[in-house]
């Protein structure tokens, strides 16, 4: 088992290095993948694990891997199915940066003929909010880019905030593109609901207590620490609900799900 373990670790670290800003989600996805394919389920026949036949075992691992990928690719659709009823006619939704899950939810709501408006923060430094606006407009959804600094100004006319995630940590806190934490604090201050749309493979076994507890590889793209961080951590008390493929969860339910997987 030892060479197999290190091979997976090597592959995971190579993926993480190549993934740019999505390092956290790649890390959690890899951990869960390894965990999932080696999980011994009770229904499985004993001879697959106990027999000396390596091919049987290898086939089993490959099958589990395919099953995992199938679940992963279907997760965005199931999240959209769960979350679109929360978008009612006439609402104004605020979102940050570029999230494909949020895009899927908004597209589904639009498909179901709901009339709503989307405000997207531009999200410095790489201004990915513009990409989100372009995508939304291409699907005929009313979208407007707003300055990161104007969230205080617009928050009073927003009905709720819906963001994606790079990762969700053990206490239900959120790791997302930099600029999400201030939006959450602003939303809480004006009593606006703050929702997170996230696939379950992004649940990560990490427990940060403060921003500095995030590992440097997640925060900075290069070795240079003078650079601006690319992600921030939003504590769970600012999050109302999480839309995941496991259901609509509260932040305290996230640790429950993680414990089911790991303990």
């Amino acid at each position, binding site marked *: 088992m030892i060479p197999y373990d290190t091979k997976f670790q090597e592959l995971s670290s190579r993926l993480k290095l190549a993934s740019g800003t999505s390092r956290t989600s790649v890390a959690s996805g890899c951990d869960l993948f390894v965990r999932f394919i080696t999980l011994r389920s009770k229904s499985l026949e004993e001879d697959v694990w106990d027999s000396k036949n390596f091919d049987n075992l290898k086939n089993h691992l490959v099958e589990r891997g395919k099953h995992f990928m199938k679940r992963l690719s279907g997760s965005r659709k199931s999240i959209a199915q769960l979350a679109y009823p929360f978008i009612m006619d006439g609402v104004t939704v605020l979102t940050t940066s570029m999230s494909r899950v949020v895009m899927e939810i908004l597209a589904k709501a639009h498909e179901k003929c709901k009339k709503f408006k989307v405000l997207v923060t531009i999200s410095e430094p790489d201004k990915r909010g513009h990409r989100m606006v372009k995508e939304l407009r291409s699907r005929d959804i009313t979208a407007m880019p707003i300055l990161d600094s104007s969230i205080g100004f617009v928050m009073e006319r927003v009905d709720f905030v819906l963001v994606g995630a790079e990762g969700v940590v053990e206490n239900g806190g959120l790791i997302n593109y930099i600029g999400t934490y201030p939006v959450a604090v602003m939303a809480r201050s004006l009593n606006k609901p703050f929702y997170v749309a996230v696939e379950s493979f992004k649940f990560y076994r990490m427990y940060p207590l403060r921003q500095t507890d995030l590992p440097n590889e997640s925060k900075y793209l290069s070795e240079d620490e003078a650079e601006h961080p690319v992600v921030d951590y939003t504590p769970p*008390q600012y999050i109302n609900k999480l839309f995941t493929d496991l259901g609509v969860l509260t932040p305290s339910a996230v*640790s429950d799900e993680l414990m089911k997987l790991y303990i």
Partner: protein
Amino acid sequence: MVVDSRPDLRGVNACERLTEADIPCSYVYINSATYVMKDQVTKVLLSADALLANGYVLGSVGTAMLALIAHKYNKPVIVCCETYKFSERVQTDSILFNELADPKDMLTTKTGAASPLSTDPAQRKVNLVNLVYDATPPTLVSIVITEIAELPCSSAPVILRRDGERRC
């Protein structure tokens, strides 16, 4: 920084053990907790006597006070608790169910002289209450560290449910 309180003064023992392990430590009474919390403390480490099913932490009296002060100054509160201490009881305050230790312990004074309160019990008009435990709400605790996992305080019932399932 070791915070201690009367009448047990168990913090003295903690300080001795820390210095034996070559860990530099300071010692204060709980009266000055607010004073030190602001600038001199970065994290608060507490132990628990029990973790209740609704997430409340039952610790020695004074724990809730430290957690509240830490929360006010935005310092993380870390509670260390083994899973055998997780209880199915639910409690929201420390008045309904608590223990009383010997009230005479409260009568010791620094100089060793008799306390003005130490008159005959029958004549005593002052009620001496020596509470043992207090309850800290889960919103004041950042993380609970057990031997099997780190979890948020609200997840205590998850461990209880797990252990319940395993026993069946």
